[in-house]
């Protein structure tokens, strides 16, 4: 679906800008420049304001990202459960550093704060699906599910 069509679905909703951004991200995995421009027109705000909203929320990204967005929780409960080693292993397996996207455009690795699954730490999410009780030796099996 095209960006303008998506925005049109939320244009009449009070406060619908963030909902529109979520819907665009569901489609593109990030907010392309065009999305900010179109949203500012549709919601009657300046481009700077539309950009200000987009960059306030860590879930929204104005940078191009991969097909699968891996977020690793680094909040205290996950931290003491070995998040640092897990992050190192993820970086090594993917061959990228946190904040980067693999050259084939498949994976983006990000840090996150608590994702609310702290019963089984440490935790990563891939496109918002949680994988709990993670450890370096489970990484390849989990990544193999991303096709």
């Amino acid at each position: 679906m095209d960006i303008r069509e998506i925005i049109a679905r939320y244009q009449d909703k009070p406060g619908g800008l963030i909902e529109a951004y979520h819907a665009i991200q569901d489609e593109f995995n990030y907010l392309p420049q065009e999305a900010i421009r179109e949203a500012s027109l549709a919601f009657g705000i300046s481009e700077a304001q539309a950009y200000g909203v987009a960059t306030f929320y860590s879930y929204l990204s104005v940078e191009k990202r991969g097909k699968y967005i891996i977020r690793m929780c680094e909040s205290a409960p996950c931290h003491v459960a070995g998040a640092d080693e897990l992050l190192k292993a993820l970086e090594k397996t993917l061959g990228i550093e946190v904040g980067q996207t693999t050259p084939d455009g498949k994976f983006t690795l990000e840090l996150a704060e608590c994702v609310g699954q702290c019963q089984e730490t440490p935790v990563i999410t891939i496109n918002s699906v949680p994988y709990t009780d993670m450890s370096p030796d489970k990484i390849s099996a989990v990544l193999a599910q991303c096709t």
Partner: protein
Amino acid sequence: MAQEYRIVLANAGKIDPASLDDYLNAGGYKSLEKVRTMSAKELIDLVRSSKLRGRGGAGFNAGMKWGFVPETAPETYVVCNLDEGEPGTYKDRTIVEADPHLLLEGMAICAHAIRSKQGYIYCRGEYPFVVDHLNRAIEQAKQSGQLGDFNIEVRMGGGAYVCGEETALIESIEGHRGEPRFKPPFPGVAGLWGKPTVVNNVETFANLPAIVKNGSEWFASIGSPNYPGTKVFTLTGDVVNRRPFEVPTNTTIRELIFDLGGGIPNGKAFKAVQIGGTSGAFIPEHLLDTPLDFDSMRDAGITLGTGAVFVMDETRDMVDVVTRIAKFFEHESCGKCNPCREGTFRSYELMKKIKTGQATPSDVENLSTLSKVMTKACLCGLGQAAPTPILTTLEHFSDDYKRRLLAAIS
């Protein structure tokens, strides 16, 4: 031996959360029917006298909060706070996943009290599956006419911790950056789109159907008299049973960790527990007999917060954990006010200095002074509570700090 007591999790595991019929068969929506025969004032009095206090952190009497909404207001809103951003907390997800209609019924009860036609559930962005689950339940409730003319819409957050603060949350629903507003005016007078708005936590709403059904005296008689009822706690860290527990509020911290939680795994000793989320106090062994109610905790200089219970064993280094937490606040500060924007940045800087053994005693003194200033000078609860982990570990676990300072000298 302490035991669980279930009010908000009474149906959990017993009914199919996807089935409205299951909820109805368990007596669901009967309380909403009952409040429709009551006046708004009668309902507010009932909730006020039950002494139900907010379960989202601030512990304010729910009925009293509803009473601030002007009776003549033509347009009002009911907002449910499902932002659940405090690290270590997963209670609201647990409640909603197990029993979504309980939340909807609770919100509709509140709507009757403040004559509202529109409700919003602000669900954190990390829970898109909960958004789907809630939308399904809302559709069922609408189709079968349970909610009458009250509408509920789910809005998804964007992964900003500060949006759990009620005025930031309102800004976010309005489609803006989630920066807290100056208070007053409070949301009860001017909230969403400037209209009177009640913001309550999921667990607060989820208690309402049982209170309406069983009466305020019943509720007021459970747990601690000043903060009656139950509280859902989520256990994390170095504890055997890492799961949610709903307990009466006169249960002590020790009972929760050692009786229900099963104690510390691998034969290790207890060192500290942080209660209430990442902005909570670090609690040493000698305070473990404090009951888990708002006032007892506050009197002991600690906080109840959201219900996160993060247990640490003897091998954990408080400086390491608190440095990590300082990074959290530096990242999550919204930047609107100077004491927090600068303060969280400097706190993190100083904690890193201490952690890497480069700090002098005067750095620790500065950190302590800065922390105290922040608790007073920051605009919202984020900046005011951010120093709590630093101040309480300096107080109760100063050896962990001193060790690092010695390393700097030698």
